[in-house]
């Protein structure tokens, strides 16, 4: 693989469309089949780019291990995974935030209240900072179900519009952190392919804000 060839890890799903749109706005010629292809690897030869499509939670993992040079990852994932990657740019897309939610008008019990989350590390460090001793229950989706059915007293999850919480009769108790997508880079790629990565950062930085 020559130096100028770059591999970018893209998150599938929710963030993908916004990320692809941003890249197009920055002047990258992405193929039209990009958006609805089921392929996991797409090469754009005229740009000397290769895209890999990964689960959002896994993007930083690919980048940390260096099989992708750069990637687009949500801050929520970065907080949860604490991977050794450069966080170069706030892309300001897919804005949402991490919050604590639960049934309205409830208090959490004093003895090891249960907290359900897709983000066990974020949840655990948040409650530790609050001086609360909690039991974290890791779930993989439909977190809102947990308080409704009595699995947990609180949940920690991302909130974008608050619609899902509302529809399930839940309310927000605290905001933990703002989340947007970030451009991340592998520490070695950032040195070895510095010129290319800096160029991409500059192109993207220009169209953000």
């Amino acid at each position, binding site marked *: 693989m020559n130096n100028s060839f770059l591999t970018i890890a893209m998150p599938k799903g929710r963030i993908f469309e916004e990320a692809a749109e941003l890249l197009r706005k920055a002047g990258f010629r992405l193929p039209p089949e990009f958006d609805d292809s089921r392929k996991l690897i797409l090469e754009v030869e005229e740009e000397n780019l290769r895209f890999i499509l990964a689960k959002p939670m896994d993007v930083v993992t690919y980048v940390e291990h260096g*099989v992708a040079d750069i990637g687009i990852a949500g801050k929520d994932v970065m907080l949860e995974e604490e991977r050794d990657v*450069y*966080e170069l740019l706030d892309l300001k897309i897919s804005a949402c935030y991490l919050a604590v939610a639960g049934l309205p008008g409830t208090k959490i019990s004093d003895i090891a209240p249960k907290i359900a989350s897709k983000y066990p590390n974020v949840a655990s460090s948040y409650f530790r900072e609050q001086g609360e001793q909690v039991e974290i229950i890791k779930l993989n989706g439909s977190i809102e179900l947990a308080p409704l059915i009595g699995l947990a007293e609180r949940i920690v999850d991302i909130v974008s519009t608050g619609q899902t919480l509302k529809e399930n009769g839940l309310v927000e108790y605290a905001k933990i952190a703002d989340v947007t997508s970030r451009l991340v880079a592998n*520490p070695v790629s950032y*040195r*070895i392919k510095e010129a290319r990565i800096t160029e991409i950062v500059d192109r993207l930085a220009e169209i953000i804000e």
Partner: protein
Amino acid sequence: MTKPFMFEKPLGMRDTLPVLYETKASVRNKMSDEIKKWGYQFIETPTLEYYETIGEASAILDQQLFKLLDSQGHTLVLRPDMTAPIARVAASKLLKQQIPLRLAYSANVYRAQQREGGRPAEFEQIGIECIGNKSICADAEMIALLADVLKASGLQEFKISIGHIGFLQEFFLSILGTEKRASVLRKFLYEKNYVGFREHVKSLPLSSIDKQRLIEFISLRGSEGTLTKALDLVENNKGQDSLGELKELSAQLKEFGVAQYVSFDLTLVSHMSYYTGTLFEVYADQVGSPIGNGGRYDNLLEKFGWNASATGFAIRVDRLAEALGEPMQPVAPECILFTPERRMEALDFAKSKRSEGKRVTIQDITVVQNVDAFTRTFSEVHLFVGNGGNGKDE
């Protein structure tokens, strides 16, 4: 924890099988030959050290140390790096006669892994320390020798990034005023979080000029011109001194003939908190983490009772082997198969082969169940089977 399987090893511990063993041995030999050519002497230190001495002095996080108790109840650590043990040895009076002192090592170090368990908790480092040498020429020697050692190992392309922790510290302090505030910004750099760095700078009660200076600081990476750009950002004399050191270093690296491998990165912050001046990391394409790092540590020896400056580097042998790509195949030995009545003949034949420097395996054929499977990996097979006659090659 459930009982481990009988073939299991503790988390992060690995077996080195023949192919990797040969690769590592070959790389290690090439590198240590080169290090010896520069007049460094190899030493060994114990695997176990006191927690209160080496454990405290080393810059490895406490939770990454393997700790155990000796029979007297002292807490011990498996050495997490070699720099602190070498500082301990150097500070003992034995080695104080010949200053500056040039020492080298090739040793395994131990760091407990927090996540996934896929990463090695024991790995080999080959490195050097140059003690009692304050000159910039010593810093240049480190980088030149690092480049030579890597070239000797067979690595064609690599890149060394050089920073200066003293400059970074003085620059932050001159703008922010307090160590507490400086350490917050340093932490962002250490975590490689440029987004957080910029947001934090924006939130600080500083003049817009100072904010701009801090934000421009992040882009102080690249060729020698970076140092000139950095000079525009500093105000106090101290920062200028550090930059002067780097300029001098840059000039000397040209004299050493290694300037083409080097670039500057003034944002470089290491997990090794004992560095005081120049520090550097080396990268190779295809390997996701630095293959080595080093720098100047002028305060570490003081902890062992001797005020002396020092500088050094360490290379991760496993990551270098990964960067080299091509694994070394072990040399296949020849095989002598014999039946008991012709053992003496076979042994004599083996002896003469070995005296020629050949690798020879001897095996009684009567206990081999599948001769074809057994002999497959040998370069040549000699048979001493049946009655009389000479050794027949197959």
